[in-house]
């Protein structure tokens, strides 16, 4: 019989090694093995060290290039809203006031800055008010015009305003624009820079924290000082909502079905292989698919976060399915047996026992998938999620989903493309914000996993 017991008395008589060696003196083989082990450890430490080094370099580059975007140069001046210019008829008729374009406001602001220069007693060869134009952002006139239209009673008064300084001035204070360079710059002269120095000493020009960069909208190519990432952030937020509400339920349902209910056969094998392959499909392919299906075929609006969300959902689904299936697989089969053994149905065993145990893994996978989607750029370019949105946030969920918008990574890409070096700084700043989001999402994933991981 195959499993018959050992023949009697043939137990090996375990004994000591005949040539007994001292334990305190390692023999040649042991020494060699130990040396190999030490070498291997050294390689490992070197590899990790190199990784850390590059991480530090990267972080340093990002922070040093991008921090500037969070600061902005402003000019604080009292502006006299001259009725003779803004409301010639003097009737305070809102329609008349609206007829005055930003060109009507520019001289007033330039005058205000010029007066500030005089008051500070700065010696300068720039003797005309028009010479102040180079210091002031083009957005300033629009800013004051909006204030006046909102409150026409301001006309005739002198108001203290904080206006954006021109991007070159900002660059000068941040060290981006150097005196050597301005010789070839038609936007600004060395005399202007002297003025800026003087005004800064006088406290008229100041560099402060720039909330508008985080909350504001994009601006035109020539107004880098005004651009913010806020609206793109909202676009990204709406897309993430779409991804979360579609990819999580679909992904989890698909994984539960495949893992727990589906018979293991050719078809499910094929599906499985395809899902794994989908995860490796370049994201730009999803972009083209989204363009062909959602925009050209279904006629959804271009540049809409809904479409972006749908495309990113397609992209995120494989990630979520793979991680969900992995965490379902990690639940020991004995738990399923136990549930079935007391007469629970398949469904009950899955929902009462398996899913709660797999939940932390599913959650982590979902958050990681979302983070991936948040940083995705290529497919968004194809469906036109690079809308130039210079206005403010959309109102309401419906318009938020359907109005043209941009997304954070696409916005960063847009900025990086623009010629003005001031936009380069903003691109880095945008990357910092994006990274803050990604790092917090990943931290959240880690915390959730810690919190809910088998508590016993």
């Amino acid at each position, binding site marked *: *019989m*195959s*499993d*018959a*017991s050992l023949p009697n008395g043939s137990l090996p008589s375990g004994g000591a090694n005949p040539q007994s060696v001292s334990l305190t003196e390692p023999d040649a083989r042991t020494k060699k093995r130990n040396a190999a082990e030490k070498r291997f450890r050294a390689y490992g430490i070197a590899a990790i060290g190199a990784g850390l080094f590059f991480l530090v370099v990267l972080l340093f580059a990002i922070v040093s290039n991008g921090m500037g975007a969070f600061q902005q140069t402003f000019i604080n001046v009292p502006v006299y809203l001259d009725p003779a210019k803004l409301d010639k008829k003097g009737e305070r008729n809102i329609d008349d006031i609206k007829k005055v374009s930003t060109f009507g406001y520019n001289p007033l602001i330039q005058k205000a800055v010029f007066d500030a220069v005089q008051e500070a007693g700065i010696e300068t060869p720039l003797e005309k008010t028009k010479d102040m134009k180079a210091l002031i952002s083009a957005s300033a006139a629009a800013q004051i015009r909006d204030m006046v239209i909102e409150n026409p009673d301001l006309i005739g008064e002198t108001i203290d305003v904080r206006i954006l300084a021109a991007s070159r001035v900002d660059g000068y204070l941040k060290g981006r624009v150097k005196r050597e360079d301005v010789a070839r710059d038609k936007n600004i002269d060395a005399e202007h820079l002297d003025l800026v120095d003087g005004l800064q000493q006088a406290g008229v020009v100041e560099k402060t924290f720039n909330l508008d960069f985080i909350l504001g909208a994009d601006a035109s190519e020539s107004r880098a000082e005004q651009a913010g990432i806020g609206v793109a952030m909202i676009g990204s937020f709406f897309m993430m909502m779409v991804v979360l509400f579609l990819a999580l339920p679909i992904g989890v349902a698909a994984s539960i079905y495949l893992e727990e209910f589906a*018979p*293991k056969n050719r078809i499910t094998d094929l599906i499985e292989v395809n899902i794994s392959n989908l995860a490796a499909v370049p994201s730009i392919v999803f972009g083209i698919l989204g363009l062909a299906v959602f925009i050209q075929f279904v006629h959804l609006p271009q540049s809409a976060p809904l479409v972006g969300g749908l495309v990113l959902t397609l992209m995120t689904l494989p990630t979520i399915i793979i991680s969900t299936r992995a965490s379902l697989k990690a639940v*020991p*089969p*004995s*738990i*399923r*047996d*136990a*549930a*079935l*053994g*007391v*007469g*629970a*149905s*398949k469904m*009950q065993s899955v929902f*009462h*026992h398996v899913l709660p*145990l797999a939940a932390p893994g599913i959650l982590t996978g979902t958050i990681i998938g979302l983070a991936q989607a948040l940083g995705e750029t290529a497919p968004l370019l194809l469906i036109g999620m690079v809308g130039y949105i210079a206005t403010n946030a959309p109102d309401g969920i419906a318009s938020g989903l359907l109005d043209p918008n941009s997304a954070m990574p696409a916005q960063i890409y847009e900025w990086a493309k623009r010629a003005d070096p001031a936009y380069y700084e903003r691109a880095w700043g945008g990357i910092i914000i994006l990274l803050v989001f990604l790092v917090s999402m990943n931290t959240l994933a880690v915390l959730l996993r810690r919190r809910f991981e*088998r*508590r*016993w």
Partner: protein
Amino acid sequence: MNVMTRLEKQVDTNAIKMECRDCQVYYGQTHAIKDVNVDIEDKTVTAFIGPSGCGKSTFLRCLNRMNDTIDIARVEGSFKLDGEDIYDKRVDPVQLRAKVGMVFQKPNPFPKSIYDNVAYGPKIHGMAKNKAELDEIVEKALRRGAIWEEVKDRLDAPGTGLSGGQQQRLCIARAVATEPEVLLMDEPCSALDPIATAQVEELIDELRQRYSVVIVTHSMQQAARVSQKTAFFHLGNLVEFGETGQIFTNPEDPRTESYITGRIG
């Protein structure tokens, strides 16, 4: 030999609870159970003995269709519970498993509290109308599982935090809580000390008053002590099946004799 102490124990012949005919189980190409015919009597303890890997667990799992969960397993033959074919297409295995409970070879408590472990079955079968009734069921089951005294002060503690033997008794309590008509126990005492073993054996004896119990065991003494019927499996074959006393004193097959006297296995 002391395995024969209970030899004279009286054996009543009871109605047949489960009837298995020409049973075959295949795991892919492996033929794990070959032509097995067994009758499980009502109000009787039936012991399955045999060397490791001979198919005891496999056969036991046929009785409540747990083999359905193994993709590569294929079961053939007729299995009847109270005259009804349990492999009939119309039979819901879930309903079957409520009637035929199981304690697994490896303790597998849910990663929930001790209370929830035991209460889960009664809850999903709607056996308790309110919390008080459920409490009562849980306490009774834990007492029958011989673990009440140890856990009564920490019912909220996780079941997975118990020792291996305690976990196994918790699993026994969980299985009896749903009041199955047939209880399948796969080596329930392999992780238990002699005291707990004695308690479980007492429980088995008590269960026998109302239900039938099938127990897989590697302990000849235990088989002799608790069972009235014994089946000896070897390499997937049912070598001998009969009265426990008969098997242990006067086995017909030489393989049975070799095994119970310790020469196989």
